[in-house]
């Protein structure tokens, strides 16, 4: 590859000079970034959206400033405005973005630089690094990670190619990627999610920027991977004396890493302050509301915020096949799953080639009881088989082996695992499902009336005005207006759509409802409302919930019993109190230790546990 480093022309120097601001104009002498009156506006035919609406923000040198807010709060737009990479048609229209990379230099007002000019390009990547949420989408799939990381050095330094390669390998190693000298030539789809995000971090940091902006860098990751990435960012920040802006919707993460917190809502900053003040003495109602949506917080033991430090790490073993069972209550279960096994065939090799049939065991002989009227949580990380188990119980899949014993109202017990589609019909009304994605799970061409009424119509349970009446009743129950029945799903917000999904699940009068990540896609404040709705409906209608989720805090809050899944096995099962307060299995302990504690005063007090199954050799890839 030909290295083309554009040497700055004279007008770059002039542009920077014109944008220079003396240091005493900064809000405080130790400010790296001082944003004043920033407005970022998206103008399109549909109207004007003020994504960032007149905000002030100061980031002190060497600190971590967390910007928190829900979707649409303008937190990402703020991050992108700083280096002027807002997506079209967005534009920074007003305000000052004073950036001072080091103490000895004057500050630069980046809002005055041409977004396409050379001056700001010299700052991007070199002085300010950016990490994005979804590493798969944020990196090019058709270039190797080495190619993409090297580019930063090719652009901002004069190093020869061989030296650049060495630097990239070294950087990959320092962000904890094993076998970096091979991985440098890997493509993104050949790496795990955690590894991809590490590569992204290496890319953002290789030019040693003084400011790192991380835009939801752990949101797409599993909780144990999130813990590793947060630890890594903390270590790097300390080693390299960086300043970090961390954007997140997760207050737990904020409590773990922040020094200062900025709370945003509808494009405005509603509250700023040191992390301890935000968590223990919030001033604004919205901050209080956000905090209230957190799971019950443990009372503070110490009133001192400790220096952020990576907590000690212990590695625990234990067999992945072992299943810890806490005491089971002596009640006849509504649903009783016995040794359920679900295998999928994957065929590799092409036509005329050697075909290799491989079996993927998604659910590996699982047994689980669900008591009538209770809420059972099924937790685990992505790929552990929790969703497959839920769908197997619903008989979306035909289980490979095992029993699904369902106890009907009249006391008869039937095994759903072997039933034909026709025999299953009555059970399809008794067992219903709520899906994760409130956008993807509603047909955009059906009215709310049609969406909710369809299960009744298909089952022949009601028609005409009776159908409309029942749909209207159901809308009342889930907190929507009857008049909304004639509208189409696109007219509703995420939370309202999820209410429609719930109404559709409940219209047939089911006994068991399987909620598959039903609140995962929702903002915290909306999530609280939906969870309250589900709880209300449960007591009103005597429902039983199987609540599939990766979010341990939600499960802890609403579930009576919890089953923890790991690679197709239930490794631990018991009452919520037993599992959360006294976890026995190594994996459960590791999982719980990775959940951020939503209290800055408890930061660094908990030991980080890493689980490594006995029968698996220490894999460098995933466990690193």
């Amino acid at each position, binding site marked *: 590859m030909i290295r083309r480093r554009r040497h700055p022309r004279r007008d770059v120097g002039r542009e920077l000079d014109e944008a220079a601001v003396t240091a005493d104009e900064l809000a405080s002498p130790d400010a790296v970034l001082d944003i004043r009156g920033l407005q970022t506006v998206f103008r399109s035919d549909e109207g004007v959206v003020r994504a960032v609406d007149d905000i002030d923000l100061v980031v002190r040198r060497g600190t971590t400033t967390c910007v928190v807010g829900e979707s649409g709060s303008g937190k990402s737009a703020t991050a992108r405005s700083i280096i002027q990479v807002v997506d079209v048609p967005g534009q920074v229209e007003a305000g000052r973005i004073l950036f001072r990379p080091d103490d000895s230099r004057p500050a630069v007002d980046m809002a005055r630089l041409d977004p396409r000019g050379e001056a700001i390009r010299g700052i*991007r990547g070199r002085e300010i690094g950016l990490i994005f949420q979804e590493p798969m989408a944020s990196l090019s799939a058709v270039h190797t990670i080495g190619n993409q990381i090297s580019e930063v050095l090719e652009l901002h330094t004069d190093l020869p190619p061989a030296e650049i390669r060495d630097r990239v390998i070294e950087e990959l190693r320092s962000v904890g990627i094993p076998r970096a000298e091979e991985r440098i030539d890997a493509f993104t789809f050949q790496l795990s999610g955690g590894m991809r995000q590490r590569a992204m971090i290496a890319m953002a940091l290789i030019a040693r920027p003084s400011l790192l902006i991380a835009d939801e860098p752990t949101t797409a990751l599993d909780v144990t991977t999130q813990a590793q990435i947060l630890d890594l960012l903390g270590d790097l920040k300390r080693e390299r004396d960086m300043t970090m802006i961390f954007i997140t919707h997760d207050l737990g993460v904020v409590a773990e890493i922040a020094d200062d917190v900025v709370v945003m809502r509808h494009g405005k900053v509603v509250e700023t302050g040191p992390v301890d003040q935000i968590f223990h003495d919030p001033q604004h109602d919205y901050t209080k509301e956000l905090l209230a949506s957190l799971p019950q917080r443990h009372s503070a033991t110490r009133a001192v915020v400790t220096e952020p430090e990576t907590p000690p790490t212990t590695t625990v073993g234990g067999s992945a096949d072992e299943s810890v069972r806490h005491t089971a209550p002596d009640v006849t279960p509504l649903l009783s799953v016995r040794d359920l096994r679900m295998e999928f065939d994957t065929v590799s090799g092409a036509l005329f080639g050697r075909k290799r049939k491989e079996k993927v065991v998604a659910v590996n002989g699982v047994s689980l009881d669900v008591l009538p009227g209770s809420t059972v949580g099924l937790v685990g990380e992505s790929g552990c088989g929790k969703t497959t188990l839920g769908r197997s119980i619903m008989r979306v899949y035909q289980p490979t082996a095992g029993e699904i014993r369902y106890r009907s109202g009249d006391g008869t017990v039937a095994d759903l695992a072997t039933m034909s589609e026709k025999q299953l019909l009555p059970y399809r009304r008794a067992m219903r499902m709520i899906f994760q994605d409130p956008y993807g799970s509603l047909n955009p061409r059906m009215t709310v009336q049609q969406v909710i009424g369809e299960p009744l119509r298909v089952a022949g349970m009601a028609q005409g005005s009776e159908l409309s009446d029942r749909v209207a009743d159901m809308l009342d129950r889930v907190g929507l207006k009857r008049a909304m029945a004639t509208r189409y799903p696109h007219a509703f917000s995420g939370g309202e759509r999820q209410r429609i999904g719930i109404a559709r699940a409940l219209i047939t009068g089911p006994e068991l409802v399987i909620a598959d990540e039903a609140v995962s896609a929702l903002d915290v404040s909306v999530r609280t409302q939906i969870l309250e709705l589900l709880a209300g409906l449960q007591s009103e209608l005597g429902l039983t919930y199987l609540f599939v989720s990766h979010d341990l805090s939600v499960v802890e809050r609403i579930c009576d019993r919890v089953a923890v899944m790991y690679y197709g096995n239930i490794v631990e099962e018991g009452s919520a109190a037993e599992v959360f307060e006294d976890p026995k299995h190594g994996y459960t302990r590791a999982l719980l230790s990775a959940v951020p504690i939503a209290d800055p005063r408890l930061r660094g007090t908990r030991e980080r546990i890493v689980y490594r199954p006995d029968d698996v050799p220490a894999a460098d890839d995933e466990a690193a």
Partner: protein
Amino acid sequence: MLRFVVHRVLHVIPTLLVVTLIAFFIIQLPPGDFLSSQIARMEAAGDSVDPAAVEALRTRYGVDEPFWVQYWKWISNILLHGDFGLSFEYRRPVSDLIMERLPLTILLGVATLLFTWAIALPAGVYSAIRQHSGGDYVISALGFIALAVPNFLAALVLAYIGFKYFGQSVGGLFSPEYANAPWSLAKFGDLLEHLWIPVVIIGLAGTAGIIRTTRANMLDELHKPYVTTARAKGLPEGRIVRKYPLRIALNPFISTVGWNIPSIFDGEVIVATVLALGTTGPLLLSALQSQDMYLAGGIILIVAVLTVIGTLISDVLLAVVDPRVRFGGK
């Protein structure tokens, strides 16, 4: 990678088998057989027909034999002897007829292809980057006009302009004085003078489609997060576009690039006929009109085989260019 190519090649064999069957089926479609209709026509014209010659032809082509036997004779002659049979109309071997028109056909096809890409790709990329700008609208409007105007009409108009304002002879790829002259620099110059009309006409229609595809692909890719990432690294806009979105937006192209091979060969039947070009296109048309079925069948077979081979080339190219295909499916 080698495995991938070998697999792909193995896929081609059964496809080709089916293709030859269908081509032969088309030859057999018209009622009666070609010899009997040919003899009838000759007798009607008062010519005497030598019964021995007819019998020889009958045996050679196995006209009275069942479909499968005929197919076998046809395909084995092609495979073993490279013999595509005899054209009834021209009374010459089909392969000779095709071969003598091939160089010009390929020249025209390749020139057209290069012209199309040279115009369409930059126009499509520009259109996407400056979406909703004046330039975008002009390009789109011109593209749609080029797509909507029938080729033959444009051919007539351009031929008229060439004749009226540049004093060129109408039709053909050569001026009359060079048509039968041996190759020389002057003849080649004469060819280039005539070539632009068919190239522009055939090229423009294809351009419109490619502009729209490129524009749509680029618009999809331009707003992907990885473009923002590249921007956040400090890359200049031009380099971002060339290295990242364009690379992916070109994939659909690469996967169809092989389809151009047959169209290079068949040389745009209608435009070539209107302009009286000496390419294979008019040959195919006249063969179909006069039921000269071995000639038609031979051309159709070659086009079909080239389509299959073109697709194979595309698949391999795509794997070379896109690592997701190369390493995909493990």
